[in-house]
């Protein structure tokens, strides 16, 4: 007898995972059904299975390889710059309380600013190339890493800093052996958010302002009524975002479980 009504041998986390998967699969199947029965018109949306087949064909034919590489390099560069700059600036601000008091309100209202309006300025600064798009990704993603770094460093227990002195660590050793591992969960959240913001910034930038990349490909397909290609590219963007975020989430959960936070 199984009084809880749950599958025997499954942990709570596994049950939640399976439920989540079932909901997503159910929604995809519902969408497939609505498209196949023309409740949703073919001009509005194509069935998910057709999107997947078209995506496979585009990849196999190499039609979108350049776009994938361009977007990947832009997102990767924006992400790397954001993480490094966000960590350095966060550590600096955390160490300087007066500076922190001064810029706290600016950081808090950062995401209320529509940075895309600065695109002409970025083009004037960097030229008509990928740099303005990377700059938009960096501008979007850096504050997330900064805020997470500040939060992480704030929460390094004072007793561990004292312990570093008991072990006669140099400042550099203290950072490597105490500060970074202690702040790791917050830094990890910063990585996750920075990737998401860099991805959003770059794709949105390409969509509106670029001549290449996946965002541009979606916009171009939309304007040329290439429904299949447009949805296939949208599916690819969605899969990458969910895949990377999911992988980081699994890694983060493992880290949290070790520390008893899950």
């Amino acid at each position, binding site marked *: 007898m199984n009084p809880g009504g749950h599958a025997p041998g499954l942990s709570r986390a596994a049950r939640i995972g399976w439920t989540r998967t079932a909901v997503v699969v159910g929604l995809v199947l519902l969408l497939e059904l609505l498209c196949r029965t023309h409740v949703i018109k073919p001009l509005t949306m194509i069935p998910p299975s057709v999107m997947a087949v078209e995506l496979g064909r585009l990849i196999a034919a190499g039609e979108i390889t350049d776009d994938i590489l361009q977007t990947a390099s832009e997102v990767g560069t924006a992400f790397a710059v954001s993480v490094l700059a966000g960590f350095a600036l966060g550590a600096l601000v955390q160490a300087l309380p007066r500076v922190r008091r001064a810029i706290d309100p600016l950081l808090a209202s950062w995401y209320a600013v529509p940075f895309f309006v600065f695109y002409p300025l970025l083009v004037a600064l960097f030229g008509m190339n990928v740099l303005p798009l990377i700059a938009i990704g960096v501008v979007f993603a850096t504050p997330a890493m900064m805020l997470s770094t500040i939060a992480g460093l704030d929460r390094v227990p004072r007793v561990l800093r004292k312990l570093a*002195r008991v072990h*006669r660590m140099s400042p550099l050793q203290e950072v490597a052996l105490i500060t970074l591992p202690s702040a*790791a969960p917050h830094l990890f959240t910063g990585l996750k958010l920075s990737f998401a913001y860099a991805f959003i910034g770059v794709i949105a930038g390409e969509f509106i302002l670029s001549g290449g990349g996946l965002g541009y490909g979606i916009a171009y397909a939309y304007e040329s009524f290439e429904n299949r290609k447009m949805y296939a590219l949208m599916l690819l963007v969605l899969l990458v975002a969910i895949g990377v975020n999911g992988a980081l989430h699994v890694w983060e959960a493992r880290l949290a479980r070790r*520390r008893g936070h899950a």
Partner: protein
Amino acid sequence: MSSNAEADSLAHATLRAVTRTYPGARPVHALGPIDVDIARGEFFSVVGPSGCGKSTLLDVLAGLSAPTTGHVTFESKPVAGQVPDGVGVVFQEDASFPWLTVHDNVAFGLRRAGMEAAETARRVDYAIGFMGLRDFAHAYPAQLSGGMRQRVCIARTLVLQPRLILLDEPFGALDQQTRLLMGDELLRLWRETGASVLLITHALDEAAMLSDRVGVMSARPGVFIDLVTTGWARERDSRIVSDPGFGVVTARLWSSLRAESMKAIGREA
């Protein structure tokens, strides 16, 4: 040789005319003047009202905080600016590293010191066994109780084989039974290592049970108002609480401390 110099050469650690004032718009005189010697192999405890400077005393002796006046020595060498080699500190707060297993927590200091792997393994294995953590060697601190985490911190200090162990209310967060048992572990550790121990505690019974000598501090700025020698044999454990002498020692500690504790909470004795 002056009498002070003679005493210093016999003592394991000394504090001479030590004061500590925290600077600021309104400087706070937290401690002293303190004059005390801790003999080699002695178990010395410090009790006192809240905020009397007990932890400041430990910080100054450990080299974590510089005295405003006076001087501190450990093994006849001045303690200045950093924690001397041979001194181990256990804090009241949980200072285990949550990202390391119990084994790696305990091995931390030895690995940093570049000790050979086989010797590290031997010492860590002994310390983990000594503190009753063998079944949890591969667990993370989050999977342990508060008492077990504190034992991890003690084991991490123990493996470094300190000659002076400074303990800042290490059992403060534990229940009474666990504290008694941890006290037994601490006595066993003290006997086996031959180290000198300075224990800061707010629990009079703990100080009376564990110590060779107990220093009673006044309300802030903390100075020693009584030094009580317990006279216990080195071979002792928590069962000493049933000894008639235990009540006598505890009563003396309380009679010395009562008026100071009243002062600390703003009431006349």
